[in-house]
């Protein structure tokens, strides 16, 4: 941190010298100061009994009471568990599927097929999660959903998807994978196409089969990228995909036991119950542990692979 010596006289001289540069940076700086740094002290609301009229800093300080309450009623444990498990599945399963598709895409030779399929698989990455929610409705709603149309057509009974929490675990994971595979696949594919072509040529000359080439060359080359993405993913493992969960589950409380994550809980405490302090306590817990996780992960990455560390 010694690099950032901000002694008074120095900075004034610097600003005078580079007036225009500072002015050009100013809009972005103001943005971060207002929409990020000005918000941070507000995390204090987690430690008070928030009263709308008295504001954050005028409300009564109650210490860790909000946290105690959340631990006692089991909410904190439940949403933490759900967030962690979902993210773990998204991360591990998601990356494996992305790698498999990247390798398969690199093995095929049809140029046109390659191009079109790559574009198609990337398409879900570009639509809003609201549309994904519409897709889910289109497929799973009781009276007219596509799956129920099939069931009814086959003489089976219609299924109440929207009142079975168990099944949404799979639907959520399926949509997450559906939407995210293209993005990861392209990143892994870029790593594969970056492999020196001579290496493959040499392997081919030595009589290596396609499978051997994948097993002993491509996979080991992808390993560092995989581990890095996994590690950095771990750093964000407490951050939930709010837009996915909210658009699939919405306000259907029947499904909460298995689909409630930290972010949906905080959101509800804001708009549903107006319990600002409780929601903020959860939010603060998420931010703090998120920061610690990133620092730990970065520490590990710096030990293993210094070039890839974030800072």
């Amino acid at each position, binding site marked *: 941190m010694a690099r*950032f010596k901000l002694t008074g006289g120095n900075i004034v001289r610097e600003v005078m010298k580079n007036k225009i540069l500072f002015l050009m940076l100013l*809009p972005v700086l103001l943005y971060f100061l207002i929409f990020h740094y000005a918000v941070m002290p*507000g995390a204090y609301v987690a430690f008070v009994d928030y009263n709308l009229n008295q504001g954050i800093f005028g409300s009564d300080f109650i210490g860790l009471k909000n946290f105690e309450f959340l631990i006692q009623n089991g909410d904190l444990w439940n949403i933490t568990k759900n967030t962690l498990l979902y993210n773990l599945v998204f991360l591990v399963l998601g990356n494996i599927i992305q790698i498999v598709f990247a390798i398969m895409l690199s093995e095929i030779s049809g140029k046109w097929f390659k191009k079109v*399929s790559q574009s198609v698989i990337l*398409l879900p990455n*570009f639509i809003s999660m*609201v549309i994904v929610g*519409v897709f889910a409705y289109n497929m799973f709603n009781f009276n007219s959903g596509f799956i129920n149309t099939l069931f009814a057509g086959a003489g089976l009974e219609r299924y109440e998807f929207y009142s079975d929490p168990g099944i949404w675990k799979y639907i959520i994971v399926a949509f997450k994978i559906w939407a995210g595979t293209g993005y990861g696949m392209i990143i892994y594919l870029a790593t594969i196409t970056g492999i020196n072509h001579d290496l493959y040529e040499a392997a081919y000359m030595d009589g290596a089969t*396609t499978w051997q080439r994948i097993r002993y060359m491509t996979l080991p080359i992808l390993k560092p990228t995989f581990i890095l993405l996994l590690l950095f993913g771990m750093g964000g493992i407490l951050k939930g995909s709010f837009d996915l969960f909210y658009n699939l589950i919405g306000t259907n409380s029947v499904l909460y036991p298995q689909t409630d994550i930290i972010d949906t809980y905080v959101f509800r405490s804001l708009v549903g119950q107006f319990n600002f302090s409780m929601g903020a306590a959860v939010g603060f817990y998420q931010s703090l542990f998120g920061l610690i996780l990133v620092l730990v992960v970065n520490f590990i990455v710096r030990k293993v692979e210094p070039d890839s560390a974030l800072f």
Partner: protein
Amino acid sequence: MEKTTINQDSGSILIKGVSYVSIAIFALICLFPFALMISSSFMNEQEIVREGYKLLPAEFSFKAYEMLLSNSTKLVNAYQVTIFITVVGTVLGLFMMSMAGFVLNRKDFKYRNFFSFLIYFTTLFSGGLIPTYILMVKHLHLKDSLFAMILPGVVGAWSIFLMRNFMKAIPDSLYESATIDGAGDFRIYWRIFIPLAVPSLATIGLFSALGFWNEWYNGMLYMDTPDKFPLQYFLQRMVNQTNLQALINSGAVINTADLPTQSIKMATAVLATGPIILLYPFVQRYFVTGLTIGAVKG
């Protein structure tokens, strides 16, 4: 020798075959919800009520679109809001971020590491939703203002660093010769760097525009007046509501029984996704460039 050659061939043919088939199947899975949405929007309401949404309906009907377009005040409104926030947000964001990227790339700018860290740190720690909400509503008075949907996402740390990295590719000698000619900093940025940075501006601008086009979250949090709802939030309410009449048109009297409730939901979704799907083939390669460059490291 003979045997291994045969093995090699059959093995690689098998892998190729499996690859082609799995990729084709997965690509179809990616397209399926879009196809189902489109065909559902063209379905006859009675058929949906009787049997449900289908991929291949027995008969096609344009009723949902006719109804939407003949009572389009609300939809047109939502479109206008979304176009407004997309254009203003993207232009404003690009201007702010390209200036910041330019400054942070200047080696003679002494505090660039400090400011970069200041920006970077916000990706590691955030105050959280609730303090943000209180700030936006109580202190910035942005409740029910269109700027509540523009300002929070106008710039992004990742995009600024991407911009800075793009600027790195522009040779310093250009800047040096311009300084010798007596051009000021802003002039150098505007006249030399911006024209050279057009491809990167296009990439980042597309990401930014896509974000604003898909915006619904801030609309849900901060907008009260239905006339100010963005397209995606309008759609979300439409799908979750059984009584659509109020959402479609407040003035005209529509016979509720005639309203193709189920197909109209899908027709709205088609109209909200349409522009993205139409533009996608043309802008897709910019996205891929952005994704691969961004992934390499910020």
